[in-house]
Structures are given as structure tokens and as C-alpha cells.
């Protein structure tokens, strides 16, 4: 492993004290990542807009401040990227779409403001499925991102570039969004950690909406600890987001390193064994992860909730209705400016009635209450994230097939914190993953369980080979 590779895969937790103590130069780190992105991003297409000039200016500013003794905290001088539905003032927010390709953001999203205040180094805007909804489209102004573990394969989405850039060693963290699983899907398929925090914990202001009541903003990182560090910096009340909640500050790293002995883990097996049968390799990975947690001393008990198909229908009707309301005018006036897959998916929403939407919301209240009631008897729930390893990116039918074979959408319906954590590799060398779900606002416990599992395995230490 070369020194450049060491910098590429440096974690935030490793880098932060080195930067604080002036043993690691943010400028040198940023330069190393700029070099890596310049050499390899053409192979995986993580970036829609790479901004090395901004990055170097941010890094120099951070270095100057730190050299004067003003260290802002663990993200000071740390490079990151934003999914390109999140505003960065002065740059286009394209949503990976011809429709918005010249749309310049006039101000920062709230999450961008927070990262700017934390002194993080902005590296660019990252690939997404068009409007966070379409699949891997080849008929858009930019190519789709590709899986760094096998570039012929899908990398998940819709926060595709966020997953790819993190896994590929381009960035130690990236920000994505999740309406039906769009942080956790690329996290699983790219072998990184991604959390959808509790609804309302991270502001959505300045993020192009897909479905108002289901949209969440969350970080993707290579380790659980890094994820908690980033969430600490981006969580918080924002009066500019009607869904934002005012909560006392919580240190999401506080429980990291504690063991899981005696913790009650609900094993939500029917989602992937009965409701929609997972690929055997994925199912076996989840089962093995549960066994590992049991070996670590957790009390594992099987739990049941609303069938997965019911949750998914609820999620899709709400998402379809809300997204159609947002896109209806463009669909009427300029439908051919959307990619084929996006246009197809948006059209579903045209078919739902007001009663369908309201009924989905009424069921949402029931399902949420039923799922949250589980936490009277368990501390966290473990289940699958994706039901299949990544398919080939050029296989449209396979991408459509695996699109709905997942156990992530239920937790957009319930608003629960849900984290995807790597859980091994398929025979073909593609990442597998699990999902850990907590009670509302209990991200710290989700991170604790994820970190304990991570420490007992070596999955997050694996690195893809971009050179071959």
C-alpha cells in the first residue's frame, strides 16, 4: 500500500487529530485526493462536477486557521462531496438532469452551511439517479456512476456518486439523500456505511425534493465511527425546513466502543426470508451478521411486523403522488428532457387518486405505530438492506428487478433511523450488507451496534482496485 493510498483511505477519525495537531496538512490530503480523482474518476463517474479549485481554497483556509490555533472540530480540513440535488451556492444543482443543467443555486442548503461552518473541504457535486428517482440512465447529459468493485456493475442509487466516491477512496465522506433507500442502497452495493437518520433530524432545506414526507438527508462513510462524526455536524433544528425537529444535542459517537452484551436485538427475518426472498448469498450474509451479534453477547429474538409488500406499496404510493405533484408541469411541457427510466417512474404518480394518497398516509400512521411498538421489547432491529448483490449496469431488466427487492423503504415510511453496514462479499466479489434500525432519535445506539459488528469483522477495511 502506497502513501498515496494511505491518504486516499484515511478515515475522518484517524485524520482529525492529525490535522488538529498539525501532523497532517489538509492541503496535502486534498491534493492527494484530487490526484486520485483525476486519475480514476473517468472509470467510475462518481463526480458530475469536480471542483479542485474550491477544494484547494477550502483546504488552504483550513490549514491557515489551524496553524493559528483555530481548529473548528473533526471535519475541519476534511474533504467531502454532495449529491447533486443538494445546493452549493454559485454552482448548478442539476439533479443529474437536462432539465436543471443550468440551474445555479443562489444559496447553500442547510447541510452545506453546516459543513462550511465545520471547515470541511468541498470537492464537488456527485452523480445521482435523475431527480433521485431514475435508475442508471444512459440517455442523460452525464453517464451513470459505476460500481468500484466491478465497473460493469450497478453501484446502487440514487445517491450513486456518494457511494462510489466514498468506496473508491476519493472522499472520506459524502452526503446523500434517501426517500425509499437511496443512501442505504449505494452504501450496500458499494460496501460502505450509510445512514438514513430519523425523519426531521437533518434539514432538507436546499435539497431538491423527491417526496416531501419521505425525504431524508444522510452521510455515507467508510466506517461507522466516521458516519457518527458527520451526523453530529449536520444534525440540528432548522426553522427553514417544516419537517425539522427541535431536539437536545446528542453526541452520536457517545456509545461507540461499548459492547452489545445484553442488548436486545430484534431479528426481522420475514422481510428477506418470506415476504421477498433474498438472493441466497445476501440472506446468508444477514443471517451470519445476526449470529456474530449473538456471539458478541446480544440477545437476539425474532420479531415480526407489517409485511414488506404492504410497506413498499405505502412508500411507493406516497412517493409517486408527491413526486408527480413536483414534476407534473415539466412532464406536461418537456417530457422528453427526462431520461427514459425517470419518465417511466414519474408516470406512476399520475395514476394515483387523492384517495390513494390519503389512504397510504392513513396506513403509514398505523404501520409506524405498529413498527415502533417493537421497541418496547427490543433495542434495535436487524434485517436486510438490499435483497441482491449489484446486477450488471447495462442489464435494464435486472436493474428493474432488484429495484423493488429491498427492505429499506419501510423505514422511510416509519421515519426510523436505519443504517446500512457492509457484511461481506458475494462469490463474484460484490459487496453484501445488513441494515440496523433503531427507535426514533436513537441513532447513537444504532451506531453502537454497527460499530461492534464492524469491529468483529473486517468488511469495512476492504478496498476496491481501481487500477486494474
Amino acid at each position, binding site marked *: 500500500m502506497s502513501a498515496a493510498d494511505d491518504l486516499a483511505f484515511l478515515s475522518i477519525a484517524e485524520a482529525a487529530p492529525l490535522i488538529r495537531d498539525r501532523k497532517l496538512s489538509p492541503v496535502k490530503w486534498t491534493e492527494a485526493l484530487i490526484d486520485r480523482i483525476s486519475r480514476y474518476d473517468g472509470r467510475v463517474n462518481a463526480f458530475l462536477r469536480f471542483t479542485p479549485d474550491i477544494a484547494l481554497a477550502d483546504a488552504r483556509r483550513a490549514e491557515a486557521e489551524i496553524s493559528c490555533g483555530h481548529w473548528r472540530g473533526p471535519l475541519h480540513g476534511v474533504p467531502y462531496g454532495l449529491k447533486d440535488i443538494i445546493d452549493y451556492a454559485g454552482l448548478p444543482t442539476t439533479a443529474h438532469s437536462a432539465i436543471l443543467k443550468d440551474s445555479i443555486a443562489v444559496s447553500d442548503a442547510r447541510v452545506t452551511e453546516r459543513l462550511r461552518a465545520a471547515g470541511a473541504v468541498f470537492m464537488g457535486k456527485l452523480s445521482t439517479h435523475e431527480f433521485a428517482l431514475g435508475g442508471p440512465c444512459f440517455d442523460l447529459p452525464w453517464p451513470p456512476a459505476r460500481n468500484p468493485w466491478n465497473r460493469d456493475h450497478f453501484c446502487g442509487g440514487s445517491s450513486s456518486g456518494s457511494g462510489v466516491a466514498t468506496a473508491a477512496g476519493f472522499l472520506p465522506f459524502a452526503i446523500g439523500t434517501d426517500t425509499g433507500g437511496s443512501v442505504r442502497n449505494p452504501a450496500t452495493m458499494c460496501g460502505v456505511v450509510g445512514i438514513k437518520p430519523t425523519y426531521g433530524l437533518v434539514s432538507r432545506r436546499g435539497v431538491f425534493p423527491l417526496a416531501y*414526507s419521505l425525504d431524508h438527508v444522510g452521510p455515507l462513510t467508510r466506517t461507522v465511527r466516521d458516519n457518527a462524526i458527520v451526523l453530529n455536524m449536520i444534525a440540528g433544528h432548522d426553522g427553514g425546513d417544516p419537517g425539522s425537529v427541535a431536539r437536545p444535542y446528542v453526541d452520536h459517537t457517545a456509545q461507540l466502543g461499548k459492547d452489545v452484551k445484553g442488548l436486545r436485538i430484534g431479528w426481522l427475518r420475514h422481510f428477506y426470508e418470506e415476504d421477498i426472498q433474498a438472493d441466497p448469498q445476501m440472506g446468508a450474509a444477514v443471517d451470519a451478521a445476526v449470529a456474530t451479534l449473538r456471539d458478541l453477547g446480544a440477545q437476539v429474538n425474532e420479531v415480526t411486523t407489517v409485511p414488506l*409488500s*404492504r410497506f*413498499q*406499496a*405505502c412508500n*411507493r*404510493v406516497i412517493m*409517486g403522488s408527491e413526486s408527480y405533484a413536483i414534476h407534473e408541469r415539466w*412532464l*406536461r*411541457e*418537456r*417530457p*422528453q428532457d427526462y431520461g*427514459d427510466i425517470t*419518465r*417511466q417512474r414519474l*408516470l*406512476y*404518480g*399520475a*395514476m*394515483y387518486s387523492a384517495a*390513494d394518497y*390519503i*389512504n*397510504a*398516509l*392513513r*396506513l*403509514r*400512521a*398505523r404501520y*409506524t405505530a405498529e413498527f415502533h411498538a417493537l421497541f418496547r421489547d427490543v433495542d434495535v432491529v436487524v434485517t436486510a438492506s438490499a435483497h441482491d448483490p449489484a446486477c450488471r449496469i447495462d442489464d435494464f431488466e435486472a436493474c428493474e428487478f432488484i429495484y423493488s427487492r429491498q427492505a429499506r423503504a419501510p423505514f422511510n415510511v416509519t421515519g426510523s433511523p436505519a443504517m446500512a453496514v457492509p457484511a461481506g462479499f458475494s462469490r463474484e466479489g460484490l459487496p453484501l450488507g445488513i441494515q440496523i434500525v433503531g427507535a426514533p432519535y436513537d441513532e447513537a445506539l444504532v451506531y453502537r451496534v454497527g460499530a461492534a459488528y464492524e469491529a468483529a469483522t473486517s468488511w469495512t477495511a476492504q478496498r476496491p482496485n481501481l487500477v486494474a
Partner: protein
Amino acid sequence: MASLGQEDLLVARKLAQRLGLDRLSEADMQKLLVAERTAQMRRSALDTSVLTPADEPALVFRLPGAGL
């Protein structure tokens, strides 16, 4: 995808017209019918039989300041 027969095409065009989606292409007519079928599947997977009139939607109108 196989192309649509004349009857399906007519149905799809009428649907597009009703929705105000006049600028969809001929190729999109098939998408529209796929969307209709998929939406119907999802709608029928909504288990509304469990709902009573007292079941309110998850999102209800709240006045600013309510609950403080």
C-alpha cells in the same frame, strides 16, 4: 419492449390526453400503460380494509406554535 396494438395505443392516447400529458411521444404510450398497471398493483397492495374512519393520515395540518 414490444410495440402497442392499435387498441392499446388509442387507450393510452386518451389517458395521456386526460392527464394533460399531450407531449409524450408514441414510445411513451407504452410507459403510460405500464404505469397504469404498476399503480394498480401498488394500489391493491394498500390494505385499506384495516382502516376505519377514525384512522387519520400520518400528516395532518398543524398551526404554527401548536403543541408548544
